[in-house]
């Protein structure tokens, strides 16, 4: 497996701990959209997301990158969910782009229709994205999403994955990890929280549709996120990007830990970052400093019960998931270690 070219991040001197690179240290062409005159504030300030919302951060960077890639000719169809609710009621309306709220399960179908109409009218310069949370994507919107992939419609679907139905009060979704506490998977009984062995890995499902481009991204690495959105916009046809967006409210974490949690999820192997073209993996982001899964879990109250002695088996099951990811995607190798 090839590694993602690190063109986005050449600067490596005097980095301590965070691996974050300030835009001023980068060449102009490597700076992110937010640090350039190209940024269009498609998702503007003034919305009412919670403090520390990973989804607000991810959406702003993803859509501004898509806007730049489409010369600001972009239409978004948006599923029901947190993103829709916190960005739309007047006067907290935050979208400065053409934007359509459809229903909970049909964003990808609405986007398919928009794209087909634009094609028929000869306006393929106008690009279409659809977006939703994990519930609207992996559960109720799954059938429509598969249809969009199947027809290879010219739509980029972005899923903001915060691993539960946060908008309706933190109920389990099929993206909720094992053991996690939600309002419908309470930490009671022998196997507290969400059950193991369920759920869908939609990036892999998308790859099984052989669509031109699939990627996972995380809000701790915004250069990588922008790179993947930009790459996706270079391609025509159905594309899928899933962005890992921690949710302080639903996860029981500190608002200030959102970026840290996103990083720990990736560095522990719980959330692998990769990209795939035509159903084949073309790049993975190697783990640079491998951390224990418990480092990631202990900052979240939704996993508090896995640290009780009786539930040690749950911690082991979560660690096994990370180990499998590391094996499957070859996330840790010699050149990936700290230099």
């Amino acid at each position, binding site marked *: 497996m090839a590694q993602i070219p690190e063109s986005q991040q050449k600067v490596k001197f005097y980095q301590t701990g965070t691996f974050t690179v300030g835009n001023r240290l980068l060449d102009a062409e490597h700076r992110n959209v937010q640090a350039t005159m190209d940024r269009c504030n498609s998702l503007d300030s003034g919305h009412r997301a919670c403090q520390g919302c990973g989804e607000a951060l991810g959406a702003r960077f993803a859509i501004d990158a898509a806007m730049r890639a489409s010369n600001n000719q972009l239409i978004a169809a948006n599923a029901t969910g947190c993103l829709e609710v916190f960005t739309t009621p007047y006067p907290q309306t935050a979208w400065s782009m053409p934007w359509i709220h459809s229903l909970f399960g049909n964003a990808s179908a609405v986007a398919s229709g928009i794209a087909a109409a634009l094609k028929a009218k000869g306006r393929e310069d106008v690009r279409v994205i659809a977006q939703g949370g994990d519930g609207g994507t992996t559960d109720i919107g799954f059938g429509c999403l598969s249809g969009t992939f199947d027809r290879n419609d010219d739509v980029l679907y972005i899923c903001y994955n915060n691993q539960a139905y946060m908008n309706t009060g933190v109920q389990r979704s099929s993206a909720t990890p094992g053991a996690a506490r939600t309002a*419908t998977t309470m930490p009671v009984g022998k196997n507290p929280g969400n059950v193991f062995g369920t759920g869908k890995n939609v990036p892999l499902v998308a790859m099984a549709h052989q669509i031109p481009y699939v990627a996972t991204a995380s809000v701790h690495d915004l250069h990588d996120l922008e790179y993947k959105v930009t790459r996706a916009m270079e391609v025509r046809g159905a594309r899928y990007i899933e962005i890992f967006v921690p949710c302080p409210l639903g996860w029981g974490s500190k608002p200030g830990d959102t970026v840290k949690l996103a990083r720990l999820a990736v560095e522990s192997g719980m959330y692998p970052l990769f990209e795939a073209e035509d159903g084949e993996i073309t790049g993975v982001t190697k783990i640079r400093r491998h951390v224990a899964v418990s480092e990631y879990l202990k900052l979240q109250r939704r996993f508090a019960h896995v640290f009780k002695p009786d539930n040690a088996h749950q911690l082991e099951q979560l660690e096994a998931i990370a180990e499998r990811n590391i094996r499957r995607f070859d996330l840790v190798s010699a050149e990936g270690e700290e230099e």
Partner: protein
Amino acid sequence: MPDSAPTKTVNLPGNHACALGAIAAGCRFYAGYPITPSSEVAERMSVELPRVDGVFIQMEDEVASMGAILGASMGGMKVMTATSGPGFSLKQENIGYAAGAEIPCVIVNVMRGGPSTGLPTRPAQADVMQARWGTHGDHPIVVITPDSVPEIYAQTIRAFNLSEQLRVPVVMLYDEALGHLIEQVSLSGSGDIEIANRKWAADPKPEFQPYASGDDLIPEMVRPGDGFRTHTTGLTHAENGFPTQDPELVDQYMRRILDKLEIHNALIESFEAIDTEDADYLVVAFGITARAARRAIKQAREQGVRVGMFRPITLWPFPVAAFESIVGGKHGVLIAEMNAGQLITEIERYRPAGCRVDGLNRIDGETITPRQILNSLRELADNE
């Protein structure tokens, strides 16, 4: 709830009372999907069901939730799902299947403003017609509209009883305000609750006809594993369960599933009549609006206008006989509902000659107030 549970009094929101009523009625299977303002029903069921060896499944969408409860009901359990407007729309095809294949189930619709995503966190009573005619084709369905948290508890139990006895889908229809309203509820001890169960077929003979019935028009249900060979279908079917297009058999089937509610009307009909006997005017209201109407009719009487209230508890089939006997001789009827005028069509159908019918409709996401009803009553009295 253990069998020996004594009666106890607790404070509960309406959605929790619904969940506890279901458990008390013997519901042991719940499949649902998160939707405001009904999610608390699912949340409470997810806690309560494991305690009674029941099954809680959060499904991947509204359609799947409805399908799962139908499967579980045919598997022999008492089942429920809860939703709100958009989810209720999605469930409709399955609700029609339940009506046609006569599968007992309870569907809770905690009403919010519509159409479409509408007003997710605001109350409305705008699914009156959808609850009756949401699915296609002529079909039997029972719809119950409680007006308080204790009544949500009691009527949820009744919803299960009716559904099991009549083999018909029963809709619990109440609004967001009642779903989130907290009131005192006496949870019955298990011995105090009247529980009705479906009729089980007992004799797996080869000539068994799963959709044959006696005079009560209700076929016995087959418990999987009891040795019966049955065929269940959404296609129009004969008494043997197999699809048919024979006009005579189609007519027989259609009339039986529609008539079975009519002949059991005494069981289904329920209403409340307050101060109607000497009244010149009548307020018709249900659900949260009936609470405002109660106060308004008192105030009207203090001002010398004699008003009573008719409150359908079973909304569909509409309690026609009861309404007709009460409305006779009244000068006017005010129908107050949080929609653009849905139940009013039913009232107009059954009003006596010379009786004026006015509608008071609120469609702004707020509840109707006693003052609004009082004002409309005075207008009715002045202009009659």
